[in-house]
């Protein structure tokens, strides 16, 4: 070979260079592919799949006559998928373009997109888009990849504030909920959940199983194909015992009343089922569906009227308490019902004079007359005869001072006072206390729910049921999940004659006494008015009543409270009458109860929506 003046060792050195580089690369490849293969595979999968969570429609809520009180309706949401628009400049531009049609703050929008981009998770930028905006958004959709408009089921309360205190409302998950639910696969950061009332209590059954579409997307965030589509399962439907018309009558009555504040509770004395449950002031639960927290949804400066008067409002019972005093008087055995008491219009208790409502005096009254006229003097005298301890005993027997046991939170027990309660407090009992106790003034405080319980017990002769409002829960596939059953809590044992006399007395209240406003043609009404003295303003008006038709067991007992309503007969009794009429509309109108179909429409009070013809009453 010719001498080419080639330094051989330099050739070898170059060769080693190539060899060494290849070796380093292979070592690095082993590290990447063999050792880290599984890790990178996971990252690649995360890259290409995008999940659109689809919130399952929440279970609907129906009244007993199958009027939908809470349902779902389709709404359009603007979603951002982290895809191509990832650089900060692109996001800024997109946020600027979107902020005008959405009317949203540019900074907030940008921040939420940034967060979504860094977490690689889709985010809802706006919900419940009105059609006007949709058009301009769909134009922007073409310009900015990554944003999309999707349809979702959104909670909707067709009648607004109707039954709001029982139904409650739903809202966005907040940090407190999130700590409790973050492990639950069915909830994500933007899910909704029940925040109050029934929506909260029955969150578990109302919430269905969310579905999702698993999409394969390319780097621009454009959908390539659907990998898997998991169908959602709608939540179970809840059927309430509440009668839509009775409820409407109750709410309208409260709204039209003098103060617009108060509560109506109507129970079925046979079972304890709630027929109407109104509390005013109320709120429109629709306003929380869109916004996050309670505060956001309310108009500025307003406080949520979440206070449930029916359960949480405690008032002196006033003359309504005379039902219990009557029971004590008749059961004590110390007073005969025909014994007359003379009412001069006042009662001299020695150191102090107690007045009767009627300044001129009622004259001679027996038990029926005393109850019908609601004569204070009669109850002062006979209350003293039967004894404060007996009255206290019956107050407790009629479950005052304890919660009704309804499955709703924050119920107040009210207060029962009497000699034994005083003794427990190591204080003294005076004659004046007995007098106040007998006519329901003084320290006694009851809720409208307790008043309804008392009148219901009178109607069914002593039985207290646990009030319930869920008639049945039906799964989306039609399977019965739960059936509401009457639950007996306690009974008041009294002589038959006592019940009969009370019944007669309450009937005469409506027939010839203070509650004549409540008379209904075709039905027998048994009621008691009450005017609770209020040191802070106008008196609170009470009216409790139950009704029977054709001597059948009573189907409805109702308690009405109008705060600062003045006299019970004037402001509370008409509401009770309207509620009873609405609830008994099938029994009242037709002369022959076998054909109840035709006249019902004509008679129906103005309701937001005509209900599905019911299959008879509960």
């Amino acid at each position, binding site marked *: 070979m*010719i001498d*080419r*003046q*080639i*330094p051989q060792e*330099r*050739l*070898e050195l*170059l*060769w080693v*260079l*190539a*060899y060494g*580089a*290849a070796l*380093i*690369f*292979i070592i*690095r*490849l*082993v590290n*990447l*592919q*063999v050792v*880290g*293969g*599984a*890790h*990178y*595979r996971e*990252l*690649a*999968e995360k*890259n*290409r799949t995008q999940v659109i969570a689809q919130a399952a429609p929440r279970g609907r809520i129906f009244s007993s006559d199958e009027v939908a009180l809470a349902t779902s309706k389709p709404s359009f949401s603007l979603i951002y998928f982290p895809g191509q628009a*990832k*650089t*900060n400049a692109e996001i800024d531009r997109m946020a600027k373009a979107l902020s005008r049609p959405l009317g949203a703050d540019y900074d907030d929008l940008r921040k939420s997109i940034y967060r979504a*981009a860094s977490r690689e998770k889709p985010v809802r930028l706006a919900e419940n888009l009105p059609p006007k905006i949709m058009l301009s958004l769909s134009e922007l959709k073409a310009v900015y990849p990554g944003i999309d408009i999707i349809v979702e089921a959104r909670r909707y309360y067709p009648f607004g504030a109707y039954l709001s205190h029982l139904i409650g409302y739903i809202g966005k998950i907040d940090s407190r909920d999130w700590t409790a639910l973050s492990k639950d696969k069915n909830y994500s950061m933007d899910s909704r959940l029940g925040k109050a009332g029934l929506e909260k209590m029955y969150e578990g059954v109302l919430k269905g199983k969310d579905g999702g579409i698993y999409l*394969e*997307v*390319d*780097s*621009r965030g454009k959908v*390539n194909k659907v990998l898997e589509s998991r169908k959602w399962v709608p939540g179970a439907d809840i059927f309430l015992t509440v009668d839509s018309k009775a409820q409407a009558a109750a709410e309208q009555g409260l709204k039209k009343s003098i103060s617009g504040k108060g509560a109506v509770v109507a129970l079925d004395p046979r079972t304890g089922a709630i027929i109407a449950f109104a509390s005013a002031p109320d709120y429109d639960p629709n306003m929380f569906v869109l916004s996050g927290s309670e505060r956001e949804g309310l108009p500025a400066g307003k406080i949520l009227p979440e206070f449930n008067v029916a359960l949480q409002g405690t008032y002196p019972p006033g003359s309504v308490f005379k039902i219990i005093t009557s029971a004590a008087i008749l059961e004590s055995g110390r007073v005969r019902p025909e014994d007359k008491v003379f009412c001069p219009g006042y009662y001299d208790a020695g150191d102090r004079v107690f007045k009767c409502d009627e300044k001129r005096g009622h004259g001679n009254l027996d038990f029926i007359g005393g109850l019908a006229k609601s004569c204070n003097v009669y109850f002062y005298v006979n209350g003293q005869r039967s004894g404060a301890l007996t009255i206290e005993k019956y107050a407790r027997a009629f479950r005052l001072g304890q919660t009704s046991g309804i499955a709703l939170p924050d119920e107040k027990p009210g207060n029962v006072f009497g000699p034994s309660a005083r003794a427990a407090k190591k204080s003294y009992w005076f004659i004046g206390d007995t007098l106040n106790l007998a006519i329901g003034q003084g320290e006694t405080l009851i809720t409208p729910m307790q008043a309804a319980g008392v009148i219901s017990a009178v109607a069914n002769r002593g039985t207290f049921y646990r009030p319930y409002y869920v008639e049945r829960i039906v799964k989306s596939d039609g399977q019965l999940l739960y059936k509401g059953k009457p639950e007996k809590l306690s009974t008041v044992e009294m002589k038959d004659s006592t019940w009969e006399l009370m019944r007669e007395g309450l009937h005469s209240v409506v027939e010839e006494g203070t509650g004549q406003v409540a008379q209904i043609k075709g039905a027998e009404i048994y009621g008691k008015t009450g005017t609770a003295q209020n040191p802070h303003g106008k008196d609170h008006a009470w009216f409790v009543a139950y009704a029977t038709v054709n001597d059948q067991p009573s189907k409805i007992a109702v308690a009405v409270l109008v705060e600062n309503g003045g006299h019970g007969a004037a402001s509370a009794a008409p509401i009770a009458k309207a509620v009873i009429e609405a609830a008994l509309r099938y029994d009242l109108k037709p002369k022959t109860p076998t054909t109840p179909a035709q006249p019902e429409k004509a008679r129906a009070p103005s309701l937001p929506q005509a209900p599905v013809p019911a299959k008879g009453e509960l």
Partner: protein
Amino acid sequence: MIFTPQGGLKKNRMDWLLFLSVLILLAIGTVSIISSVAVLPNQARIVRVQFMAIPMALLAFSAAWSLNYQVYQDQWKYVYGLLLVMLAGVLLFGVVDKGSRSWYRLPFFSIQPSEFARVGLILVLANFLDKRIGKIKELQTVLGAFALCVPVFFLLIKQPDFSGILLTFPVAIIMLFAAGASLFHLSIILGYAFISGLFPILWSIINLNPELLDNTLVSYFFHLSDSGWSAFSFAAAVAVGAWMLWRLSVKLYTNVTGLYFAGAALVLILGFFSGVLVKHQMKEYQQKRLEVFLSPETDPRGAGYNLMQARIAIGSGGILGRGIFSGTQSRLGFVPERHTDFILAVVGEEMGFWGMLLVTGFYVILMGRIMQGARLARDRFGYLVNCGIFGMFLVYFCINFGMLLGLAPVAGVPLPLVSYGGSNLVAMMAAVGIAESVYARRYALV
């Protein structure tokens, strides 16, 4: 010894192993290109160009193989002239694509002359070094070789095409090294290149960490490149510093010639000035790439994102790969430039570790066979030509792999024979053809 001399004594006119490895790399590349562009809007055009380029590349290979390589030595002036004209012409008649004016637009395809110029320059350099082999140890020879490169570099900067320089410069060094140039001279050149690369990198680091500017010395250094006066003051300071060090060494009787100090100062100053030049010529995206390499976490959504996605693609392939035409990372577009610079990400994802091993292995075989051609060449020119071609493949191989595996900055360098790119494929096949020609004519009388 890695090669046995006997292996080269067989009288084959063709190095079949070399040709086989070329074909396998080409096949892997073509399959990966077709897979990776499947969802691109211009996929039909890309596939068409690829299938048009393959016959042309094979034609170029055959032509270069059949032609006696010594022609290039005889006609080196024409080769050199042609490549300069091509590069100058593209500045006048070329079209701009991705910010560089480096394409000739022809009716059916475009030609990138810098790919061919790179091969041409190897031939010219080989001739020059062959002629000057007697004076190879002198500095003039080394400088002369670079003087030949300077017009080419100048024209490349004008395009601008930094990756072209990045690829050509090491090839020249490798050829000089193979020719037997003095290591001292080579280290001066390397030092110069190192310094001209170091300055932009240092400035980028300061750019990334603005808090460093609180230090006055750093701040002074950072603003050196701002104006001519500050640059001049730096040069003067370096010269004075070198002179003072030389005086010191004289006083200390160290017996070091002043030449070394002058040389060191000169290298520093020249390197500084070319660093300034590089910094001012660098496009914004190139600056960005450098920054991302230096600290990948600065922009995880931007340039760093691309590199991360490529790494995920390779890693997710695992040992066996996800199957050809089934890679989600590359087919869904998460990997950028997946049919060109990041083609290995596609190979890694779809063919797995074995696919990558195949590419690496055949690349090593390819380079080894070209080197064997150099070893057996009948004359020094052939030897130098093959060394240059070997060096070129080595540089491509190292930069492309290194970039992908996070060992080098993203430089926009394709992997020859595997990546998409018509001009590159034809030029590289021509280069392999020339190497084959050297191998085929290894005996004087064949």
